[in-house]
């Protein structure tokens, strides 16, 4: 049952979410925008296309993209980004963070493999961002696991342990923290502009600059999965925060989770319409907000326990 839910959701929601954000951004700019399913069409198109590989690339270029994709494919079945317990159980927060790091390691290596200066710049930025953002992620998740008394992801996001320690503040702080982390990790607006075509300033798009055809399709899919996982976790946190007002029906909460993810997508579209990209040297200051949220959440969680 859970496997089916996660499979269907993983195949639909990530792509719809990307399409939705693009559609909303277009609407805010008074354009009609691409159809909602455009990301899916793009991926099908890319699978049919010819792939070009740099003559300087070693085997690691393709292997890195493949491993990056597999990490996210594994995560999307094992992280409770929906309110059901995931298909693969027993993943704890440290494993989650380190699996993200593995994906990142291989994506950096495949960006650097071609000897392209663009990919290298992006790889360097990605390493820096991950270094800044990982403490924030772990603090947010740690706060929640202090509440749950377990570092197991599915037990943290289970809606059951809430009867013991129900504390909306921790959940809301963590939710906001994880949302900011999602913006940073997905290289969205205040950190990086995904729509410019000036690769010198970019993070994610410049890392995949040498990928084409199927390789590009795989990295697009892993990006979509990452979006779904991070937004899903943030949304689950926020839903746990307002648990008191929610009806006790799994399917309603499921619907609300999906609606919540799309609401966060809408927020992202608004942010991307009104915000400008930060100067690179200002990025650590912005990331500090996520860290602060994580710290607040931890302190609140310790307070609740005491």
């Amino acid at each position, binding site marked *: 049952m859970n496997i089916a839910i996660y499979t269907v959701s993983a195949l639909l929601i990530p792509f719809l979410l990307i399409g939705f954000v693009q559609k909303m951004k277009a609407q805010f700019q008074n354009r009609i925008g691409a159809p909602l399913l455009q990301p899916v069409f793009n991926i099908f198109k890319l699978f049919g296309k010819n792939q070009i590989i740099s003559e300087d690339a070693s085997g690691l270029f393709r292997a890195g993209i493949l491993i990056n994709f*597999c990490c996210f494919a594994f995560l999307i079945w094992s992280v409770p980004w929906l309110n059901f317990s995931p298909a693969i159980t027993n993943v704890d927060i440290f494993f989650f963070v380190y699996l993200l790091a593995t994906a990142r*390691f291989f994506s950096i290596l495949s960006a650097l493999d071609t000897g392209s200066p663009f990919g290298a710049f992006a790889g360097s930025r990605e390493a820096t961002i*991950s270094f800044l953002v990982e*403490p924030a992620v772990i603090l947010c998740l740690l706060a929640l*696991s202090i509440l749950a008394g377990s*570092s197991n992801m599915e037990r943290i996001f289970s809606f059951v342990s809430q009867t013991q320690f129900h504390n909306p503040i921790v959940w809301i702080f963590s939710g906001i923290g994880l949302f900011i982390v999602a913006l940073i990790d997905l290289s969205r607006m205040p950190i990086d502009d995904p729509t410019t075509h000036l690769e010198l300033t970019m993070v994610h798009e410049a890392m995949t600059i040498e990928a084409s055809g199927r390789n590009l399709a795989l990295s697009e899919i892993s990006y979509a999965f990452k979006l779904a996982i991070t937004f899903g976790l943030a949304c689950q946190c926020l839903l746990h925060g307002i648990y008191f007002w929610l009806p006790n029906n799994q399917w309603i909460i499921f619907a609300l989770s999906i609606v919540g993810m799309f609401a966060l997508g809408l927020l992202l579209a608004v942010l991307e319409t009104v915000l400008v990209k930060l100067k690179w040297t200002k990025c650590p200051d912005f990331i500090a907000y996520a860290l602060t949220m994580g710290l607040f959440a931890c302190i609140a969680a310790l307070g609740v326990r005491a």
Partner: protein
Amino acid sequence: MWRFLISGILFIASILGIAFSIHSIAEPVHCSLNLPIYLGLAPVSFVSDTTSSIFAILLFALSLAFSLFSPSYLSNKTKNERSLFWCGSILFIASMAGTLFSGNAILFLICWEIMSLSSAALVASELLTKNTAKASLIYLSATRVATMLLALGFLSANKLFHSWNFADWQLMRPEALTAALLIMFGCFIKAGLWPFHIWVPYAYFAAPAPVAGLMSGAMKKIPIFLLVHLLCSREPVGFAIPILFLVLGSVSTLWGMIFALVQADLKKVLAYSSIENVGLIMLALGAHLLGLYLHMASLASLFLIAAIFHMFNHGVFKSLLFFASGSIYQKAHSTNLNDLGGLAKRMPGTFLLFLLGTLALCSLPPSNGFCSKWLIYEGLFQLVSSPNVAITGSAIIMICILIIAGALSLATMSKVVAVIFLGRTRTKLAQHATDCGEFMIVGQAVLACFCILLGLFSAPICTYLTQVLKQESFSSPDIFKFTILGVLCTGFVYIAFLKQPKRSSIYSTWDCGFGPLSKRMQVMPGSFSQPIAALFSPLLRYRINAEVSGKDRRHFPEKVVAESSTQSVLESKIYTPLVQAVAALGKHINRLQAGSIHIYLFYLLMTLLILIVLELVR
């Protein structure tokens, strides 16, 4: 010819050693040699118990790989260098085994001295080709201080317990605090823990790569063995010692990785990362002692197993990486990151093994490095749930430190792998590199196999260690299922989507339409790590001196030079003044030794007078 004979003997001896250690894990073996040489105070007696056997398995596994790797590594050395290498390394390995199995403190100290001196000789062994004099002096003085502290500690412990046998010593008792602290600091210096780590990058950089592998993989574990042996019994050692371990361990973890990031040489990167790993082990040991103090038995045993397991893992993957640096040095004639590049196509075997080692170093799943780090995280998480707020807070801080160190190691090692193996070759040095000989590859492959096996079977290994060390059982995380799943998933995606793509063409890297990229347009190691290094600039003394000159310097500069520099604060601000002060003091003392017989007679007379006066006063 000779070197193959010696390495063959070493190979067989290592296998026998492993077999003996595995056998003696379960049942301790005592053996007292009734030699004509009595060590003055204690007999020559050897004991092998569970702890020493576990450490000995690591030592012999590394010497096995060493014996396979070294002969080919020595192929282009002179005869003198070779004979020094073999004499030194056999003494080195034998004395390490001696320290592990020695039954009393005197024998331990003798073996420890032989170990220190033989490794110092090995560090200096490339004296003629590389400028290693400074490195070996620094290393030698660090070992002198370590030995002195250790000897003092042993003496005071002997005074308390009236025995030279380790088994009779109970350093956890409060009156033995001085002895415990002296021994601890001796061990910290030898293990290269912050702030005593100054010698580590010098020594590992100067030593031949296989020796550096042994030093980092096995020698650094001897002081840890002594600490485990003496301090980690079932009784708590007070509150101060665990805190000392935890603080020094966490600072070391962070400090090592921050400095590893900005190093320009592969061996120095590895050296600083081994400072990080020793910090991690000490942190786990400290948490073990803290757990004992708090009477949380299962937590304490989790940390002890984590420390021992990480020690094992670190030994294996760090030696693998040092060996790989040796084969890079042999084929590309440099380990400077700025000189290398594009070796993945030229040395595919070394590349694959290096990548495996890197995964373990960055502790990425499913490697063995991750498994032991996971145990430490699990333990720290249990500390977070403890009722004491101070402990909870410090556990959260330690988790953050470990995460930051992990992210830094990811940044460092992705840079290292990329600039050595990926892209294009940066200089002519590495252009004609080919993969190294079969034996060198096999030597590394043995270690890589250990890495994989230790990772896959981490849960059964931990359970086994818990049983033989007679610790409380705890639930250890299991990665086996995830690894198998991950490998299957990767294989499936590869076959389903990527194998034999319809059309695939090879073309040059995208160059923005400006014509072909040159090898100098690639990222340099310094520029890759600049964003993070700039964040740590106060600590690293990181400066970039840029010079742009020319008539119209804004639009058409004629000369652009940029150079980044870092400085080790601890070395320049504390150790150098300290050494200078000692040297200056030494000069004054030197005046006493005037070289004139009259003055010496005068000294004698003065001494006599003082003694007489003292006697009269009494």
